[in-house]
């Protein structure tokens, strides 16, 4: 049936294929390795064997609940020349690579592409490894290999099952510490090979090699025609070895299973495999095990299960109480689906009851390894097609891509290895489910198994069979309640049917020695024993008696010589012996006892059964030191006595006929009694037989119970393990709790906040030491109501507050001031919530705030003072916080800005005054805040549109305090000052220039130094006078009259008779005043020297007036001298005065002048334009200073 590899071509072809697979990236095999932190050394050993087998991709799936991560794996593999790669979503597996699965996501394989899905469950509940292996099996089928490293517990059981079901290979690491087979949750009991880690890679390579050479058939139709016959032979071998008949097994599946075994064993030809089956009993087991995989599913045959649910389950539960037990036996449970299905049905029914009975499901299978999967209770996602979503949700927890049955269900089921054909059945069962098992059994075995079920079931119990099974062969035992769906009810039979144990036909299984004896008594056919029996027949009869002649032992056939006397039963030989022998026996015994020798009495005639026989008596003492003497009495039959002799004998007893008669009467009586006794004995015997049967049955039950106990023991062990773990965890928690408790204690003692814990009745539960300041509390007060304790502070509302908090659950906070002590406490009353969030009392805390309150009051007062000061100062003041937000601004600042407080406070400066950005003032404040130094600047304010002096002082909190003052006025006056200074300087320089000019002119017209000195001095004085008067008048203007009078007075002319000065008040500006003063000085000097003032008779009239012409106002001044006796000719050396009047005044003032030397004196007319405001009128405001050059 295998494609025979052509020896001439197979090797090169294989090599070529190998090369091709190396070149192509798609792997020929994908190996899923289940690894955890504990298996890291194994992982290293696995990869320590050099390069990977050709064409193989390794995928390391990590147990996500422990610390092993990609980096660790990569580091472990690197020294062996492997570069581990983290799996990426969508990536295709490639040959020759080593992939490592993620820790945080769920890795599956679709075709050759990895899929990474977000994990829905926490690590440890994702079944990451099983999920991956199941997807690997589905994706790669026979090209999938699962490797389970030692020490992973039950992880991988579902995955290994899936891989094997799809025809792949499963390998586990050999583990010296692996527990015995009773720990049947370890997937290593499911795998094909258990090898040391360093041999696994080699095994995979061999498998890959073999796989490359053999193309498996997926279908029986594709197989060569002789295959059918070969498979039938295999089934035959299985039947003879296991008693299971697989002839009816699905052909394709059977073929695949056989092929898988061939692949595992690297056998190419079916014939070779058949040979292997014949020679290696183990292989029968392996094939048998494989055949049992995957033939079951949840709620297989839905209609039957539906009927079971409707008809049977309610009857099972009916009338059962909480204390009772419902026992269900599921045979051939394989990987457990059927057992869990029934468990689900039962649970659903039980859920309707108030006090549900206990349900125990014994799920058994011939193959303990299949039970590994059943015990793990983990199934691939594909079960979703068999199980309704409601049931999935209720009875399974989704872990990764697998479903695990919930604990409740798992605990209902007890899985144990059991061969119904060989092992004793379970008993007192309410429901036996034996589906699709009988079909594998031969008819002979079925005939034996069905009565077993009858035995196991309670009266009225149910039998649930597979769709193609029935009990028609045993119609007396079971009646169908629904023939179509193969559910039967046990019938009570008159004869208790005792099953035949054992039923075994194979060589495997437990040895139930001794049971065989019950069924078949052993034939006693030994020749020796036959000879003995013959010898016994010829040996003399004897009796062994003690010294009191009580019989100790009879030999065979002593009956002829014994004739028990009537009356009470006795074993005394003298009473028992034939009456014809009695006398002689007594004499012989006496002789033997006294002489301790053998005593013989020969040829005694004894009437036996109507004839007289000759009997010899021998009595021989049996002497044992230090013990009473025993005797052996031998009866030797000497044959019948001849007639004469016999007559003689008969005649002799005739004398005692009467005596005989009596004795015979007794004898009859005794016989009757004996008969009664015999009958009684027979009946007792019958009873014993029946008891024996009972005991047998009980024994079986004990066996069953024992098996149950063993199963339970396993469960208990695993529970014990769990308890150990839980205990360790609890111990850890207790330590944590103790530490937390101690922390809490320390915290409570160290805290200065007085705290009292009260229960709902206001009794003190605990308190911190600081409470001593509040209450007179001692440890002994625990448990006393708080109201009984005297408080040191005045807080009469305490009890009311606590009750209110307990009622409303809203915390209360109040400040309690004790006026006598001057203390203030902040009291908080809060509800005490226990961890399960119910109110278990109240917590009261007392915080001494005396100092705080005082400090606060002082601070407030100081703050108010400060504010008052700040409000009253003339400077504007404001404060900014670290983010340049206004925290305060005094009234002056607000006035300057024209803002209301709410427009600035709390807002950022830059938001309030956007125009201030990047101004010098703003930068100054920022710099002060940033550098922590006071900054003072005077700058133009963009906010106030004027000059300000601004000072920014940093404060401790990163903000700044700012003073500013509007200095626009000062700045203006400074400007004016500067201007005035410039003007003053200008005037001084001008005057100096004038003085220089005067000096030069005077020098030109003076003939002597004295003359120069006199003239220059006079002119300088005139100039000085004008300046003096000018300096007295801030406006820089002088009244004309004042100039005139000053000039005249300077020459000591104060005789009002000689001088007349009159005119309206006129103000002259500086320039006009200066030159007018100089001109008047010249006139006066001339008058003093030569004119009107030279004599007492002279007179001078200085008069002026203003006139309004069409060019504006003009001033007309007339200097007129009179009474001068001698009018000289025009003065020759007064060139300066004349020049000044005739050219200077017109040049400077635009004046028209006239100088006359007429008889009587000089007349001088000066007419000049004056500004309108030069005429002094009342309230004339002529502030504008005249600008002189």
């Amino acid at each position, binding site marked *: 049936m295998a494609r025979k590899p052509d020896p001439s071509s197979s090797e090169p072809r294989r090599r070529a294929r190998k090369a091709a697979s190396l070149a192509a990236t798609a792997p020929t095999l994908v190996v899923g390795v289940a690894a955890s932190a504990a298996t890291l050394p194994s992982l290293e050993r696995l990869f320590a064997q050099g390069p990977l087998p050709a064409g193989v991709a390794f995928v390391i799936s990590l147990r996500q609940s422990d610390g092993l991560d990609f980096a660790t794996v990569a580091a472990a593999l690197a020294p062996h020349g492997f570069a581990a790669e983290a799996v990426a979503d969508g990536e295709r597996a490639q040959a020759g690579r080593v992939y490592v699965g993620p820790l945080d996501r769920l890795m599956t394989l679709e075709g050759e592409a990895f899929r990474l899905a977000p994990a829905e469950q926490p690590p440890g509940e994702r079944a990451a490894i099983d999920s991956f292996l199941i997807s690997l099996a589905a994706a790669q089928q026979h090209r999938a290999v699962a490797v389970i490293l030692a020490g992973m517990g039950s992880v991988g059981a579902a995955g290994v099952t899936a891989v094997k079901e799809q025809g792949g290979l499963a390998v586990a690491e050999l583990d010296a510490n692996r527990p015995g087979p009773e720990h049947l949750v370890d997937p290593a009991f499911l795998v094909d090979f258990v090898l040391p880690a360093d041999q696994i890679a080699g095994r995979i390579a061999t498998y890959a090699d073999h796989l490359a050479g053999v193309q498996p058939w997926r279908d029986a139709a594709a197989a060569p025609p002789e295959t059918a016959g070969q498979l039938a032979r295999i089934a035959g071998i299985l039947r003879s070895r296991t008693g299971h008949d697989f002839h009816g097994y699905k052909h394709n599946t059977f073929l695949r299973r056989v092929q898988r075994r061939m692949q595992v064993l690297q056998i190419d030809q079916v014939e070779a495999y058949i040979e292997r089956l014949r020679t290696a009993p183990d292989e029968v087991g392996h094939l048998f095990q494989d055949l049992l995989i995957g033939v079951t599913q949840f709620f297989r045959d839905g209609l039957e299960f539906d009927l079971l649910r409707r008809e049977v389950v309610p009857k099972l539960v009916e009338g059962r109480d909480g204390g009772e037990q419902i026992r269900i036996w599921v045979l051939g449970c394989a990987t457990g689906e059927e057992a869990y299905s029934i468990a689900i049905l039962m649970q659903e029914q039980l859920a309707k009851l108030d006090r549900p009975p206990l349900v125990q499901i014994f799920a058994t299978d011939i193959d303990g390894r299949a039970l590994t999967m059943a015990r793990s209770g983990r199934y691939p996602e594909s079960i979703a097609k068999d199980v309704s979503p409601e049931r999935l949700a209720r009875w399974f927890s989704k872990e990764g891509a697998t479903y695990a049955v919930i604990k409740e269900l798992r605990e209902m089921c007890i899985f144990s290895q059991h061969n119904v054909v060989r092992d004793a059945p379970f008993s007192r069962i309410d429901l036996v489910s034996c589906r699709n098992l009988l079909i594998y059994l031969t008819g002979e075995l079925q005939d034996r198994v069905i009565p077993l079920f009858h035995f196991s079931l309670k009266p009225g119990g149910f039998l649930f069979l597979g769709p193609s099974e029935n009990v028609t062969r045993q119609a007396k035992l079971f009646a169908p309640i629904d023939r179509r769906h193969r559910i039967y009810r046990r019938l009570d039979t008159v004869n208790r049917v005792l099953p035949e144990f054992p039923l075994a036909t194979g060589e495997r299984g437990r040895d139930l020695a001794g049971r065989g004896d019950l069924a078949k008594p052993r034939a006693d056919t030994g020749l020796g024993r036959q000879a003995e029996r013959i010898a016994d027949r010829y040996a003399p009869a004897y009796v062994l008696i003690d010294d009191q002649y009580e019989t100790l032992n009879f030999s065979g056939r002593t009956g002829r010589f014994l004739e028990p006397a009537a009356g009470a039963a006795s074993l005394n030989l003298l009473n028992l012996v034939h009456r014809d022998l009695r006398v002689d026996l007594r004499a012989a015994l006496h002789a033997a006892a006294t002489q301790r020798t053998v005593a013989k009495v020969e040829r005694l005639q004894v009437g036996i059964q109507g004839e007289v026989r000759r009997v010899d008596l021998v009595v021989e003492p049996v002497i044992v030191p230090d013990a009473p003497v025993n005797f052996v009495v031998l009866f030797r039959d000497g044959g019948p006595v001849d007639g004469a002799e016999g007559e003689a004998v008969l005649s002799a007893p005739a004398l005692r006929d009467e005596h005989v008669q009596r004795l015979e009467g007794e004898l009859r009586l005794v016989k009757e009694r004996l008969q009664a006794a015999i009958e009684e004995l027979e009946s007792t015997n019958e009873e014993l037989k029946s008891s024996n049967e009972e005991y047998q049955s009980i024994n079986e039950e004990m066996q069953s119970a024992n098996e149950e106990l063993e199963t339970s023991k396993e469960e208990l062990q695993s529970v014990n393990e769990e308890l150990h773990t839980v205990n360790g965890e609890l111990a850890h928690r207790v330590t944590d709790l103790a530490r937390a408790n101690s922390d809490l204690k320390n915290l409570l003692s160290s805290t200065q906040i007085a705290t009292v814990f009260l229960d709902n009745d206001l009794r003190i539960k605990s308190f911190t030491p600081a409470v001593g300041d509040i209450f007179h509390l001692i440890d002994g007060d625990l448990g006393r109501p708080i109201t009984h304790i005297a408080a040191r502070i005045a807080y009469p509302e305490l009890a009311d507050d606590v009750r209110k908090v307990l009622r409303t659950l809203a915390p209360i906070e109040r400040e309690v001031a004790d006026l006598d002590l001057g203390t203030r406490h902040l009291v908080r009353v809060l509800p005490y919530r226990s961890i399960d969030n119910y109110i278990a009392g109240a917590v009261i805390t007392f915080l001494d705030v005396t100092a705080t309150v005082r400090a606060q009051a002082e601070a407030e007062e100081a703050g108010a003072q400060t504010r008052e000061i700040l409000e009253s100062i003339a400077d504007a003041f404001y404060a900014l916080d670290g983010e340049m937000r206004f925290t305060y601004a005094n009234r002056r600042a607000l006035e300057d800005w024209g803002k209301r407080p709410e427009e600035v406070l709390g807002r950022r400066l830059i938001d309030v005054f956007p125009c201030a950005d990047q101004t010098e003032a703003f930068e100054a404040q920022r710099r002060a805040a940033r550098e922590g130094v006071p900054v003072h600047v005077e700058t133009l304010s963009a906010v106030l549109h004027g000059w300000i002096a601004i000072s920014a002082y940093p404060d401790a909190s990163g903000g700044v305090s700012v003073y500013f003052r509007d200095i626009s006025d000062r700045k203006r006056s400074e400007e004016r000052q500067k201007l005035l200074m*410039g003007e003053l*300087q*200008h*005037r*001084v*320089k*001008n005057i*100096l*220039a*004038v*003085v*220089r*000019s*005067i*000096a*030069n*002119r005077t*020098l*030109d017209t003076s003939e002597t130094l004295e003359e120069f000195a006199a003239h220059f001095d006079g002119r300088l004085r005139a100039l000085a006078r004008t300046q003096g008067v000018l300096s007295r008048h801030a406006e820089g203007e002088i009244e004309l009259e004042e100039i005139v009078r000053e000039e005249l007075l300077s020459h000591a002319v104060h005789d009002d008779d000689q001088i007349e000065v009159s005119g309206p008040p006129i103000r002259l500006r500086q*320039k006009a005043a200066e*030159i007018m003063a100089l001109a008047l000085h010249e006139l006066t000097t001339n008058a003093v020297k030569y004119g009107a003032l030279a004599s007492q008779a002279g007179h001078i009239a200085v008069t002026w007036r203003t006139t309004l012409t069409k060019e504006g106002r003009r001033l007309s001044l007339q200097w007129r001298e009179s009474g001068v006796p001698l009018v000289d000719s025009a003065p020759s050396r007064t060139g300066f005065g004349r020049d*000044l009047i005739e*050219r*200077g*005044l017109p*040049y*400077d003032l635009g004046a028209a002048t006239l100088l006359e030397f007429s008889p009587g004196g000089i007349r001088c007319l000066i007419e000049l334009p004056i500004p309108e405001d030069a005429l002094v009128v009342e309230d004339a405001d002529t502030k504008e200073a005249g*600008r002189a*050059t």
Partner: protein
Amino acid sequence: MSEPASPNHPLRGSRVLIVEDQYLIADEMRRLVVELGGAVIGPAGEVATILALIAAETPDLAVLDINLNGEQVWAVAYELRDRGVPLIFATGYDVSALRPPFEAAVHMEKPVSTRALAEAVERLGLASSREVLS
């Protein structure tokens, strides 16, 4: 006090416009110019008069007061600059009174001495008058 005549009359042949609103100072300036050998145009103290003088005859040099009876001299200065006339400002203000574009012009503070005028003329002579005024 008459100053000794400078041996080399630097203003010989030059017609110097004197702008000054105060008679005594203008007269003194006239004396200085004459002393240095120059011929005087003006003096004059009113802008209109001065502009008329300039229109009639372009001077070779001008000595300008800045403030003329409250009137500023700048209109005159611009006119003279446009005609390429070198300028000397003689004023009671310090040099800061010169405003652009005349801030670099030659400046004398009153009272002006012969030597100061001679030096100012010399400075004008050293630097090209065009450059100074451009």
